[in-house]
């Protein structure tokens, strides 16, 4: 009886939602309200006003810079919460399950990963650097670095990976994005322009675009390093185990 009621109510809500979806304007139609006012402005004046060929990055970092800054703050706060729950002890004896395994991964996998790691790092730097002209940007580059760390840790083990990326580095770099974002945004305010417009009115019009691109690049790099370090830290915190815990379990 309860099940029938649940199915009926879910079906009713689903039918209602599908009816609403059918009433929405069709996707990609030029006459849609969202395509009439603000999108043409972005597409026609975006490159000139923001200075990025990839208009998505321009909208993210300039037109909607406040929103992106808030999102980055949310990511930092969420990672702080996750790391507070999981704990990031500084004990040297920490290990993970792959360190205990007798089976070593094959020579082929080790060689392939050793060959691939520099390419992955290079690709992530490329994604961040060319985020203003090609698809990509800080978050994507950071996520690629995070994926690279996962591959490295799975193949070479937790101890090797934490030796390469010590905790004191990571805790220092985990909040770069929000700091860099705020500093670059405030630089414009000191110059007399608005917050997060990446404009210093004192400079001549010839250097202005170059300075703006440089500021965008700094912010992108800040976001990339931040996201990569957050993914790495959460991975390590999930993997780590300490000998004391096992002793308590054994008792």
């Amino acid at each position: 009886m309860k099940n029938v009621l649940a199915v009926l109510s879910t079906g009713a809500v689903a039918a209602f939602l599908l009816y609403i979806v059918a009433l929405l304007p069709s996707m990609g139609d030029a006459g849609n309200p969202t395509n009439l006012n603000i999108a043409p402005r972005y597409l026609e004046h975006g490159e000139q006003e923001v200075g990025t060929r990839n208009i998505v990055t321009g909208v993210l970092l300039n037109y909607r810079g406040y929103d992106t800054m808030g999102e980055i703050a949310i990511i930092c706060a969420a990672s702080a919460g996750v790391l507070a729950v999981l704990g990031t002890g500084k004990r040297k004896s920490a290990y993970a399950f792959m360190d205990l395994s007798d089976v070593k991964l094959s020579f082929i996998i080790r060689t392939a990963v050793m060959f691939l790691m520099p390419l992955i790092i290079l690709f992530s730097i490329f994604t961040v650097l060319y985020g203003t002209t090609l698809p990509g940007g800080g978050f994507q580059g950071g996520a690629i670095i995070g994926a690279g760390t996962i591959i490295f840790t799975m193949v070479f083990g937790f101890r090797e990976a934490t030796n390469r990326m010590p905790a004191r580095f990571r805790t220092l770099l985990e909040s770069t994005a929000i700091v860099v974002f705020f500093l670059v945004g405030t630089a414009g305010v000191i110059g007399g322009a608005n917050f997060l417009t990446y404009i210093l009115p004192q400079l001549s019009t010839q250097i202005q675009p170059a300075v703006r691109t440089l500021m965008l690049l700094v912010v992108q790099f800040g976001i990339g390093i931040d996201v990569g370090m957050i993914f790495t830290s959460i991975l390590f915190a999930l993997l780590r185990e300490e000998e004391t815990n096992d002793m308590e379990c054994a008792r």
Partner: protein
Amino acid sequence: MLQTLNIVLLVSLIAIALAACLLRNLLVAVIMFSAFSLIMGIMWVMLRAPDLALAEIAAGAVVTTVLFVITIFKTQRREE
């Protein structure tokens, strides 16, 4: 041609999402979730949103999947 590919991808997206919800084996469900992200990434490319596709594949299909697998590995299974 593109229309057919679109329909195939959408149908498999729905099927994979249902499988990820309904399967009892958590590991298989996580792999299904990863496949969902992969197909969603292809859909983003087809919708001309390559920025989102990059983020979806790197964060959704790789990082979250590994974090879920580690969590399953470290927790115990209990049948009711």
